[in-house]
């Protein structure tokens, strides 16, 4: 089965009409991931955009065809670890136990539970859609928000000052360093790559698999709806969000960007960076280059070992 046939003929596991924003690429990501995971799945969507749009159901009705749970913001991984142990006790080992959580429930509030599950080696697949903030509740900052970005809790004044003062947490690398059997980053602009990574994560049997997906938020970042995929693509093409995977600390860059576009080209796509001056853009460019060099060095070390 080719990737196109999988996307065309695997059953859509999510309700056909959910109230995600027009053009939302998280909706695309969720539908794609759940098509690949198939009906033999139990998944949890903590509070966040995908919980809010009705995937977890509303008014006694369910928003998805497989069983879906609505855990708290900070216990998603622990709850799924319990579900996995329950199925193990029944002798059912072929079930995908999946989390589909935003960056708030992963990088901020849910980090302790996730880190614990990763360390214990609970067999769950944890997917984080990173839209750089608490977008569902009104675009507040999270520890995954980029430096200098406008959010409702890091406002910008009339002269262009303000914005978030700290750098984005490099969460994929933090998860890779948990020594987990599979960690990958993905983008909705590179669907075949995403499908391959989900299939690899499904085949993990001896520990936690983690996938970090970078989803530019149209409403919260100020991006026109038809630029949904283009903005995600520019993040990868500028090396701002590199696509790589790791298995037990062995890192491999899956999409090498030989001739990156300037970070400025990616930043100009969204309104939340509109107030940045050249110096601030240069700082983000330097951070991007530094992180990519770090990744390349890690890849080099992995190949030698």
């Amino acid at each position, binding site marked *: 089965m080719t990737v*196109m*046939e999988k*996307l*065309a*003929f695997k059953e*859509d596991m999510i*309700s*056909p*009409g*959910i*109230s*995600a924003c*027009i*053009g*939302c*690429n998280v*909706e*695309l990501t969720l*539908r794609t991931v759940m098509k690949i995971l198939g009906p033999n799945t139990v998944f949890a969507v903590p509070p966040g955009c995908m919980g809010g749009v*009705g995937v977890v*159901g*509303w*008014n*006694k*009705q*369910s*928003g*998805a*065809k*497989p*069983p879906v749970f609505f855990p708290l913001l900070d216990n998603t991984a622990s709850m799924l670890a319990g579900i996995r142990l329950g199925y193990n006790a029944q002798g059912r080992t072929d079930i995908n136990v999946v989390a589909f959580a935003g960056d708030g429930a992963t990088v901020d509030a849910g980090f302790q539970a996730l880190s614990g599950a990763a360390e214990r080696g609970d067999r769950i697949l944890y997917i984080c859609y990173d839209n750089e903030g608490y977008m569902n509740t009104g675009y507040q900052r999270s520890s995954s928000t980029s430096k200098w970005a406008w959010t409702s809790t890091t406002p910008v004044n009339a002269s262009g000052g303000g914005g978030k003062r700290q750098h984005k947490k490099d969460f994929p690398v933090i998860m890779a360093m948990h020594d987990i059997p599979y960690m990958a980053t993905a983008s*909705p602009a590179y*669907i075949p790559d995403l499908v391959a990574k989900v299939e690899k994560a499904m085949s993990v049997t001896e520990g936690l698999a983690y996938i970090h997906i970078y989803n530019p938020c149209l409403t919260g970042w100020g991006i026109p*709806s*038809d*630029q*949904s*995929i*283009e903005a995600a693509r520019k993040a990868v093409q500028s090396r701002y969000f590199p696509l790589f995977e790791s298995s037990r600390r062995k890192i491999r860059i899956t999409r090498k960007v030989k001739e990156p576009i300037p970070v400025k080209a990616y930043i100009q796509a969204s309104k939340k960076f509109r107030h940045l001056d050249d110096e601030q853009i240069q700082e983000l460019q330097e951070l991007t280059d530094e992180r990519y060099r770090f990744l390349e060095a890690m890849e080099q070390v992995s190949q030698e070992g």
Partner: protein
Amino acid sequence: MEKSYKAPMGEGIYEVNTGDWRIQFPEMDKTRCTECGICLMYCPVNSVKAGYGEVLLKNGNTRQGLVYTIDLSYCKGCGVCAQECPQDAITMKRENKR
């Protein structure tokens, strides 16, 4: 609206008639379309459907392959398909009375 499937828990599937939100709709020009499937790959609402059929090639011959059509039932009219189409075969048209 006819409910076409059952959910394992709760009283059926929760669905919003998102087709009602649309202020513009995509129109596919089959004379330019090469049936590459990019529109199906990127449609956030899964509104592009595929089936097997005959694909007309540039040299006039045909081959068996996937053929794509747009189902507007839940389409929100975001314009991603028109933006991503490499052949510019999809254009966004204004919805009547919107």
